[in-house]
């Protein structure tokens, strides 16, 4: 659910209490606190915990220039270390010698103040190099070459011309973190930085967990805008698009969505050993949906509100505290509709309880439906409270006008609520159907994969 949805839920909770509505109508605005409380779990997570969380392994595929805040950053040739292999930088220096210069392979030596290195451009990267340094590649020319350091078959380092890091770098570090988590038995948090390029565009990459083969695969994608829209002709060539690394120990991905990194900031991924199953489990953004996203936290934070409101001299402090707590709980409930889930009731529950996964392929519709529900609740509450708040004023929407005295007031009110909530109910029903279909699809895909693996095995042993 989006931030506004939670916030609106909090505001909606305050409308259930007529004394709070009376205050709002009089211009006493303290009940706005309920919106803040409903937003509070994400506020704490995204504005505090995210920054304070300990990071054990840093994955920075393309370090940024410290002033421009974009990649790539310059690296001196002498500073290149084995751990920099496949990381995206640029080197700058003078061409010392040109050994090969053709359409499919260009090789030359670049020297900067600290040392020299052989530069290699293959296939499409020859054209890329041409675009960067122009047609004339000759000795003595000063060049700036983006790319990454790699090692050839003889174990000699060279500079590979590229417009992105090699995905092996990311795959290798993630695999290492998984093994570390298994061997130490402690949670290992990996911080993966995103790749921000000039023009406020980002290089997208995807991390795939192939748990059955104990492999981490990384796919390097095109440049995308902050909105996720790919920029034309910015994909990387096939020979440096896929990276792979093996783990020594078993692991499994718990969060069912793919790990895609592009705009804004890269995620933190926790790896925790599940001793019972003997497997390392992935914990997507471990600082999120912890204690803050629980009914327990809602209760505790709301209790703190009482002395503050008493200090401020607010008379309806009990109603407001209750509404704030309900707002907080609404956040927890709404998040539980998704996939990730929350801890819910610590200390009774210690880990995230998986979400209900309603409408997994229609999150926008689910978000809208929840907003609609909250707006409906606000309208319904404002309408039914009107005679109490403004004595002598009739309800704006009064179904008894149509039904006459046959239907009691309470029933007419409830009927109005049902009418208002109908779109939400319908979308949620679709969400439940979508859930069933999604699970069925997942199972089919798993079966297909198992079948493929079986065929592979049979081919290997000569069964076909």
């Amino acid at each position, binding site marked *: 659910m*989006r931030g506004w949805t939670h916030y609106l839920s909090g505001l909606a909770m305050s409308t259930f209490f007529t004394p709070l509505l009376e205050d709002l109508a009089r211009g006493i605005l303290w009940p706005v606190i309920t919106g803040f409380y409903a937003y509070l779990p994400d506020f704490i997570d*995204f*504005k505090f915990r995210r920054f304070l969380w300990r990071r054990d392994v840093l994955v920075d595929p393309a370090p940024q220039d410290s002033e421009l805040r974009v990649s790539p950053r310059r690296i001196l040739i002498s500073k290149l270390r084995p751990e920099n292999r496949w990381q995206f930088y640029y080197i700058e220096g003078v061409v010392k010698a040109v050994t090969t210069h053709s359409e499919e392979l260009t090789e030359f030596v670049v020297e900067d103040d600290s040392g020299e290195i052989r530069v290699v451009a293959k296939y499409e990267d020859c054209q890329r190099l041409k675009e960067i340094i122009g047609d004339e590649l000759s000795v003595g020319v000063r060049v700036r070459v983006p790319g990454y350091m790699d090692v050839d078959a003889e174990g000699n380092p060279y500079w590979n011309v590229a417009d992105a890091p090699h995905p092996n770098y990311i795959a290798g570090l993630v695999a290492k973190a998984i093994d570390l988590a298994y061997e130490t038995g402690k949670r290992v948090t990996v911080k993966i930085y995103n790749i921000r390029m000039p*023009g406020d565009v980002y290089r997208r990459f995807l991390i795939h967990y192939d748990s059955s083969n104990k492999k981490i695969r990384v796919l390097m994608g095109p440049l995308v*805008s902050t*909105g996720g829209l790919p920029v034309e002709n910015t994909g990387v060539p096939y020979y440096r698009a896929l990276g792979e690394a093996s783990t020594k120990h078993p692991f499994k991905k718990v969060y069912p969505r793919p790990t895609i990194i592009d705009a804004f900031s890269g995620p933190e991924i926790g790896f925790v050993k599940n001793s019972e199953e003997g497997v390392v489990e992935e914990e997507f953004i471990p600082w999120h949906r912890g204690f803050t996203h629980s009914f327990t936290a809602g209760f505790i934070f709301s209790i703190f509100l009482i002395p503050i409101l008493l200090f401020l001299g607010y008379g309806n402090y009990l109603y407001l505290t209750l509404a704030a707590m309900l707002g907080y709980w609404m956040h927890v409930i709404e998040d539980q509709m998704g996939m990730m889930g929350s801890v819910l009731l610590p200390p009774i529950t210690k880990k995230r309880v998986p979400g209900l996964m309603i409408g997994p392929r229609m999150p926008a519709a689910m978000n809208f439906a929840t907003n609609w529900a909250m707006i409906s609740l606000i309208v319904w509450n404002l309408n039914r409270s*009107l005679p109490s*708040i403004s004595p002598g004023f009739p309800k704006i929407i009064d179904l008894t006008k149509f039904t006459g005295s046959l239907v009691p007031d309470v029933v007419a009110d409830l009927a109005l609520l049902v009418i208002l909530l109908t779109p939400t109910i319908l979308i949620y029903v679709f969400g439940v159907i979508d859930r069933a279909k999604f699970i069925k699809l997942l199972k089919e895909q798993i079966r297909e994969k198992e079948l493929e693996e079986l065929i592979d095995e049979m081919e290997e042993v000569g069964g076909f």
Partner: protein
Amino acid sequence: MEVFISPLDVLLWSLTGSALGLVFSWMPGFHIYNLLALVVLLAPSFITLNPYALPYFALGAVIAFSFASSIASTYLSVADESMMLMLFPSQRYLMLGKGHKVVLLYLIGALGGALFLSVFSLTIGIYVMPVVYNLFSPYYTWVLVAVVLFLFLSEWPKEGDREETGFKRLLVAWRQILGGVFVFFTSGILGFITTYTGLLPVEAAYARLTPLFIGFFGMSWVIRNLLSRKTLPKQDTRDSVETHFTAVVNGVASGVIGGGIAAFFPVITGGMGALIGGHIASGKGDDTFVVSQGAARVIYYVGALFLLFMPTARVTRGAVAWLIGSIYTPKTWFEFYYAGFTIILVAAISFIATLYISKAVSRLLSVISYVHVSLVVAVFLVLLTYLITGPVGILLLAVATALGFTAQVFNTRISYCLGALILPVLLNMTGTSGMLLNLLGSR
């Protein structure tokens, strides 16, 4: 039923209004609110020629403005208070040679918004709007405060992620959040001083916030363009756009919701409404965002004025409605239906006209240096401010430009500059404006 105006008059006056809107709105700094106020001031005989037709003249002008002003914000980085959220994607597209594509996407959203507005208002709206008005009118302050609070809460820290220690990361992230709060309150105090003190001459009262808005949303960006010595790539002026149907639907939906909120609730601007609309409709991606801005602006500006025509609501929202309503308020169902059809007609004309203006500006920018264009725009904005508000206006423009810059330095939302509009109203609504006036020594 009494009929005050003929369909021919409606057509004539709305087309005249749209011509005025199309001629001026693509130029930076010309806000339709000021333009219409100038027309009323400078040509009172034109206005009194046919008072029954005046609302259609204004409607035509506002529709044309909400379409054609996309040119200034896309190509010249000059927006108004409703548009600030659009700057970043449009700048990005422009730097990729796709300025015309942004305009086209915007126009698709605007046309979708206009169609929705017309159809909704002529059908369900006549029943729904009075109910919404009666239910929510005692709670306007609540809604406004809630939206402003959400603006602060939803600020997404863009920096701090790469610092070494947790404390440093937190510090850098909160620098941006607190920077936003600082910009909001400083702009608020500036707006408060401009509104409640006699800094500006009485003749400029109709445009007292103009120097501030030009400074916040226009000048600060134009100067930034000048400093960065930006050069534009060749622009693609083909009338085609590759996008997904769902991006358009989602964009129109979030624009309609956001613009609707802004049109109905006082002081909430199109940009603030668009933020909420984006959250409700889960709009994602630049295309959706640009489309939503088009829809939001049409609903915000045109919808607010159209409420004046609605016989079951007759709510006065927005500066144009207040201006027109003081001369003549439409009363009959005929006038309402005429307005509904005017929206569709003028929207279609504005769509085509803006497309051609965009092509012309796009081609012009391919041959003229963007730095020179920015320089001309900067001089033009200063001159315009001087002509409307005099030397004090220039001073206000300078302060507002500095605040617009401050928002950029903190990497925070430039929309916090709206504090200039929101804070004085909020203080007024809560009865605390006297306290601030005392503090400032103005009472």
